[in-house]
Structure formats: structure tokens, C-alpha cells
């Protein structure tokens, strides 16, 4: 075993504490042949170079993982993104997923909800309940979590521009179940910058949006200390066509923007930073992806320590959720997608992800069917329970190739981040459209490579087969929209509209001033003010964002 004093120090100061709190899943881990597996494979001699670049897991710079025992202690959270049509229908799917062994929920909202429109808004026509569940008022979120104890399950919500509203609703749902805000576990995506860059569900301009973000940081650090206040997302940047390097560069640059905004708003970095989470894409290039995750961890730790002077290790760790690459799924020979997803999920696990969503084989066509969703969950379970990759920490460390790739990705990403710094920061870069253009160009090149046969996609530009069978996809009926609108109108009749009006006026005043808007939003949702009404009030104060020219 290793003699270096730092190893002993790590065992004593980091590992021991964690083992006391969370013992490993087994007393002993062995290979199929019965060979014992060490927790942590190390080079023959641990030297300064090793310590600066890699260090020990759970210790700065966290290249080898954020946790000293990684999956020997606890497996990643298997979290399948789901949600469609009405709250009742989605509730059924969540309960099904929990029965099947998912360990966390991940709520998909429909587009009107994500953009802060009620289901009866003219722009919502045709969109209600389509790509996620429709939420207008607290009543919908209550229905969504019926029979699901929110103190036991961690819930991730893909909600950005109106994140404050959904968080407020979740807190009130908890109250009604008798759960204190402090007990709530989960994540709101709340990452508005990547919406301007890649995903498109923005409402307000960047600056007021950042104020909402920091208001959430401040409020959550007091009220919901176990809740991740943001999931800084490279996933969608990658889906929009970026490279792996651009994915982490832009994501970490966004991260730095949030941290700086919060510090500027007077928050203590070591108070809010431990609740920042990340979200990355797991793409087909297995080794590059593994290197990407490791490089991102190291870069973020350095930023937090050196740029923002975070002291706590928890403030320096990059914890992340991963989803396999939606863009890599093909409409041709769709069963091949199961294999693609397996490789991508493996990359995420070898890269040390904290939670994982595996895509379903039929998602190139629309929402997945229940059967496909089950297979994709089973994929994770097979990796976790059968492959043996979870029995040691950061198994690819020390590979010449992986370490070199990790270094190079880190360097290239840093160059891109410094370019953005020189442009005056991420907001300026977004407003000038530079970032969007870079991604668009990468996407264009990628597709050109496929078209020219320079990049092989099995079943698409080689090994093709004639196909005439189209998969059954999941459909959401038109009735959902009608019912949702009916329900909203009933609530508007039943609720105390005087109170609604007053709460909205109070919220507007807070938004105009400097007060934290969160408590006002909580009060507003409590009396069944709708998401559209709340967002309209804020639109009146903050204005709206208009798209930049994309080319």
C-alpha cells in the first residue's frame, strides 16, 4: 500500500468520516474470479504531480470523484426524466417508476409551464401536456405528488425561467403533506443562461433573470438547505450541437457567472456554493466523455478555490447529473439505440456521475412508451449490479490515454472560458450571439461529417437496412388541454381572488425593489395564483427577452 503521508492523511481525515456515516455496500468487493478489489488503485508512488492533478477522491481537486468511496458507498441516483399530459397521468407514471426501482423523480413540464404561460394562453394552444406535465396552479402540483412522500423521494424539476414558482409550489405541497421545507430534497434546474444559449425556454432578459437566480440561492440557503438550487446544464448545449469541450467550457462559464452574481448580491460563497449542481450529456465517444467529466471536476474545483476563494470542500465539488445523448439516437434500426445508451451510461458511470437518466430507444420519434422506459432503467441496473464497474473508485485513472485526454480537454476548455472572460463575460457573449454561433457551427460540421460519410453512424450512413415498420410512440390526446383549461377556470372561480390580486401587487413591488421575491411567490402560489399570472406580473417589471440573430 502507499506510503505517502498524504494518503494516510486522506484516510484519516476524509475516508474515515465518510465510512462512519455511510459504510460501503459490501464488506469485501471481489472480481468474478474472487480476486479482492481495492477501493482505490494508486500509482506505485504518489508524488506531487499526482497530488496536484488527481489527488484522492473526495479531496481537492476532485479529479477522481467527489466522494471518497464513490459507488462502493452508494450507487448513483437512477433518475428517469418523465412527465406528460395531466398531473394525474404523470403521477401514475412516477409511482410506476418508483415501483420499478428508480430512486429519484425527475419532472418534465410542458412548454407552456416552462415559459410561464397558463394552459389557456393563446400560445399554449396545442402544447398543453405534450412534452411534459401541465402545471397551472398549486392544485396541479398537489395532484402530481399524491401518494408520493416528498420527504422520502428526491425530486428534480426541469424548470428554469419560472423555477421560483415551481419551487414555491413544491414547498407548499410539502407543507400540506406535513413536511418542513428543510426536509425537502431535490433540484430545480434554474439555469437560465443555457436557455438563451441552447434551449429556448427563457422569459425575461438576462440581468433580471440572474437576480431571480440569486434570490433563490439566498432563500434556499435558509429555508431548504438540502435542495440543489440550480443544475448548471451542459446537456442542452451539447444537444444543440456543441463539442465536448464547448459543453464544459460554456457550462462552467455559466457557473462562474452565477457564482459571481451571487457574490455581488452579498451572499457568502461557502453558504450557497455547496448547493450548486451540474448536468452533463453522455455522448458516444466513451473515453472523451470520461475525460470530460474528470476535467470538469478539476476545473470547477480550481475556479471555486482560486477565483472565488471558496474554503469548504463542498463548495469546490462539481456534483452532476447525466443524461445520455438524445441527439445520438437514430430513427433507423431503433433497437441499436439501446446499445448506444448502454455505452453512454457506462461513460457517465466511469466519469463519476451522481445521478443518471438513460434515454429510451424510441425517443427519436416522440415520448417513449412504458416498455422502452423500463428497458432504459434496466440498462442502468445492469451496469450497477452486473458489470462490476462500481466496485472501485475512478477505475480509468492512470491510463496514459485518459489522463492525457483529461489534461487536454481541461486546457482547451480553459482557453474557451478565457475567451468569454475577455468578451466581458457570459452575458455579453450571449448578447452578441458568439456562443450560439460557435455551437451552431459545430452542429453544422457534425451533420456534414455524417452526410459525407466521414463519421459513421450505424444504420444511418452504413449498415443500412430497408425499413418500413414504424414504432408505436406514446401519444397525448387533445382532451388533456381541454380538461386542463376547465380545471384552471374552476380554480379561478373558487379561489380568493382579492388575495390573489393583493399578492400579485406585493410581488410586483418586491420585484421593482431589491427585496427577495421568493417569500412573495410562496404566498402567491399558496392562494392558487397561476404560474401565468405570476410570470405576467414579473414580465411587467422585468420585460421579456427577444431572440438574437442565430447566424
Amino acid at each position: 500500500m502507499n506510503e505517502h503521508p498524504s494518503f494516510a492523511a486522506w484516510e484519516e481525515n476524509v475516508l474515515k468520516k465518510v465510512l462512519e456515516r455511510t459504510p460501503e455496500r459490501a464488506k469485501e468487493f471481489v472480481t468474478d474470479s474472487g480476486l479482492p478489489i481495492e477501493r482505490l488503485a494508486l500509482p506505485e508512488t504518489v508524488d506531487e504531480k499526482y497530488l496536484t492533478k488527481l489527488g484522492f477522491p473526495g479531496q481537492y481537486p476532485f479529479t477522481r470523484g467527489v466522494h471518497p468511496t464513490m459507488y462502493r458507498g452508494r450507487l448513483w441516483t437512477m433518475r428517469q426524466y418523465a412527465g406528460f399530459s395531466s398531473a394525474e397521468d404523470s403521477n401514475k407514471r412516477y409511482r410506476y417508476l418508483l415501483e420499478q426501482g428508480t430512486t429519484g423523480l425527475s419532472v418534465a413540464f410542458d412548454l407552456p409551464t416552462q415559459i410561464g404561460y397558463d394552459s389557456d394562453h393563446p400560445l399554449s394552444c396545442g402544447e398543453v401536456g405534450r412534452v411534459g406535465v401541465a402545471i397551472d396552479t398549486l392544485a396541479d402540483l398537489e395532484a402530481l405528488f399524491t401518494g408520493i412522500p416528498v420527504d422520502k423521494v428526491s425530486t428534480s424539476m426541469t424548470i428554469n425561467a419560472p423555477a421560483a414558482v415551481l419551487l414555491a409550489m413544491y414547498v407548499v405541497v410539502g407543507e400540506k403533506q406535513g413536511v418542513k421545507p428543510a426536509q425537502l430534497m431535490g433540484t430545480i434546474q434554474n439555469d437560465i443562461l443555457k436557455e438563451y444559449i441552447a434551449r429556448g425556454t427563457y422569459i425575461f432578459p438576462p440581468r433580471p433573470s440572474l437576480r431571480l437566480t440569486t434570490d433563490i440561492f439566498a432563500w434556499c440557503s435558509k429555508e431548504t438547505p438540502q435542495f440543489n438550487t440550480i443544475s448548471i446544464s451542459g446537456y442542452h448545449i451539447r444537444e444543440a450541437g456543441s463539442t465536448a469541450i464547448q459543453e464544459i467550457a460554456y457550462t462552467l462559464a455559466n457557473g462562474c457567472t452565477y457564482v459571481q452574481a451571487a457574490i455581488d448580491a452579498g451572499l457568502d460563497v461557502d453558504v450557497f456554493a455547496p448547493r450548486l449542481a451540474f448536468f452533463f450529456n453522455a455522448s458516444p465517444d466513451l473515453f472523451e466523455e470520461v475525460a470530460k467529466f474528470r476535467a470538469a471536476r478539476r476545473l470547477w474545483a480550481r475556479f471555486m478555490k482560486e477565483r472565488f476563494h471558496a474554503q469548504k470542500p463542498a463548495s469546490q465539488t462539481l456534483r452532476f447529473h447525466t443524461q445520455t445523448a438524445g441527439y445520438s439516437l437514430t430513427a433507423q434500426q431503433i433497437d441499436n439505440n439501446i446499445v448506444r445508451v448502454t455505452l453512454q451510461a457506462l461513460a457517465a458511470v466511469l466519469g463519476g456521475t451522481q445521478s443518471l437518466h438513460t434515454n429510451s430507444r424510441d425517443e427519436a420519434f416522440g415520448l417513449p412508451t412504458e416498455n422502452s422506459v423500463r428497458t432504459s432503467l434496466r440498462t442502468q441496473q445492469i451496469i450497477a449490479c452486473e458489470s462490476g464497474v462500481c466496485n472501485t473508485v475512478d477505475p480509468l485513472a492512470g491510463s496514459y490515454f485518459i489522463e492525457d485526454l483529461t489534461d487536454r480537454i481541461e486546457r482547451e476548455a480553459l482557453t474557451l472560458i478565457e475567451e468569454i472572460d475577455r468578451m466581458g463575460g457570459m452575458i455579453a457573449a450571449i448578447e452578441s450571439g458568439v456562443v450560439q454561433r460557435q455551437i451552431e457551427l459545430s452542429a453544422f460540421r457534425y451533420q456534414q461529417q455524417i452526410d459525407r460519410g466521414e463519421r459513421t453512424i450505424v444504420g444511418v450512413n452504413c449498415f443500412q437496412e430497408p425499413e418500413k415498420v414504424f414504432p408505436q410512440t406514446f401519444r397525448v390526446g387533445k382532451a388533456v388541454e381541454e380538461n386542463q383549461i376547465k380545471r384552471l377556470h374552476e380554480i379561478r372561480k373558487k379561489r380568493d381572488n382579492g388575495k390573489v390580486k393583493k399578492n400579485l401587487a406585493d410581488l410586483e413591488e418586491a420585484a421593482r425593489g431589491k427585496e427577495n421575491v421568493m417569500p412573495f411567490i410562496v404566498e402567491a402560489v399558496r392562494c392558487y395564483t397561476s404560474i401565468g399570472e405570476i410570470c405576467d406580473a414579473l414580465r411587467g417589471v422585468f420585460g421579456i427577452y427577444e431572440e438574437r440573430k442565430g447566424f
Partner: protein
Amino acid sequence: MNEIDGILKGIREGNPRTIGRAISAIEEGNHRAAAILQGINEGCVLAATILGITGPPGAGKSTLINQLISHYRIHGKRVGIVAIDPSSPVSGGAILGDRIRMMRHATDPGVIIRSMSTRGRVGGLCAAAGSAAKIMACSGCNPVIIETVGVGHLEIDIVGLADIVVFVLAPGFGDDVQAMKAGLIEMADVLVVNKADHAGADALIVDLKYATQGRDCQVCSTSATESRGIEDLANIIGNIAQRKRQTGQFIQKREKMLESEILHRAVELMRTKLKDRLMAQEEQIIGDPQDIVRKLLEEVCVTQLESKKR
């Protein structure tokens, strides 16, 4: 009512379908183009102010124009916009994305927007853009805004197309602005420092004000994303238009514009003819280029004359 009368009536009534098609006819130079242009009510064209708005890419022209549209709409004016983007010299294609910033006016019947690409023809483009502006004016638009990107010589050409030239700048263009300054002040009626909330804006304004002292060129600042300074800009434009009309400068400029339009059209026509002629040559072209040019010109002019006689 014959076809052309129907089109002219549609234009006057502001029918977007007719206007769109009429502009296409003129852009493509098909047989109806001349008749449409002849039938256009000169009174309307004279009554409308044509604004040329130009500046380097990234200065925020489209966002500024978007705000100007809102301003004019609040004051009950119908607005026309011709937005010009460069085309790819390789494919001849173009992505015309300027109106993305103006999408909020998409269904407003009082706003008509038309995108054009250079298609590698500067003279011809000017003719087409000028004609599109006339059609818009005839449909009751006042002002008509012509937007161009300040690339190459395009921004110079806008001077020949517009009654009032507005040049949009933003802080951060540094040396480029210094290099352009002299030319800018000569050609522009208004210099707008957009993104006035950004660092460096104040210095740029002071710099430009100093440089324009004693000249017929005004400086103002805007922040188009926050719609600040828009009203001031519109007032400045309004005042200049009024003054130019009172002093007769307006008519003088229009006469010049007509001259330049004739010249543009002639050059474009000549270019096509010369090219056709050159391409039609069967033997390999050899010899002194000067001589060939002279010969070519003679040939083209003679055939032109002969075809007239027939």
C-alpha cells in the same frame, strides 16, 4: 380593371400579398416591374421619408429598428422596412435573419418588412431596394427604413438611397471607429451610439461630438435593449427631415437619388449585356484588355441601337 391596375390598387390599400409580390416582380425584373413602377403615385413617394440605417455588424441595428418601429406605431404611423443582408459569394444564397429581432411586429398590419440579399449585385440591389421603398411608400408607409450591414461599399450606397442616413455604432469597436470617423461624419446625418449602458459609451459619445463640431451631423445615444433614447432619436430624425424639406435639401437630394438610380440601373444593365456578349464570344479571348473593352462596348452599343430600330 387590368392586371397592373389591380396590383397598384392592392399596393395602395396596403395588401401585404400584393406588396410582397410586387417587390418580387421588381427584384426579378420581370415584365410587370416597369409598369408597376410607372404607376406608382409619386406624391406618396415624395411625402415619405426614407431613412437609411447602417453600421457595423453587432452594433445592434435590428434591435434599434425594432424599437423605432414601436415608436412610430405608437404615433400611428405605418412603417416599411427593407432589410439587406450580404449573400454568400460562393453559393449566391443567403440567410436573411434580421427580421428575427422584429418578429413582434410580424402580424401588425401597419408594419411591412422585406428582406433582401445582395446577390453579388451592388448596383442592382440598390435599384431593387429603392423600388421596394417606393412601393412601401405608395402603400402609405412613412417612414421607410432601409437597413444595411456596414460591409464593404454597401454602407456608402445607402447614402444614395436615403433622405436621412443614420449610422449606428456601439462601444467596443475601437480602432474601426477611429478609422471610419472622417467618412462617417461626411455621409451620416445622425451618429447613434447604441448600447449606451456599456462601458466605453460615454467616451465614444464625447469623441464623436468633438469630431462633429461645426458639421451637419448629430450625435445621440440609445440603449435599444432597454428602449432608452429611442424617442430622442426619432425626434432628431423628424427635425432633420423637416429642416431638409424646408430648405429644399430634400428635393435636391431626391433629384440626386434619381440620378444615382438611373446610373445604377444603367450600370447593371450594361454589366449584364457586356457579360452576355463576352460569354457569347466563341474564340479564346486574347490581346490587350483595353482594346477588347473598347470593342466590346462598341458591339454592345451597336446591337442595342439596332434592336431599338427594329
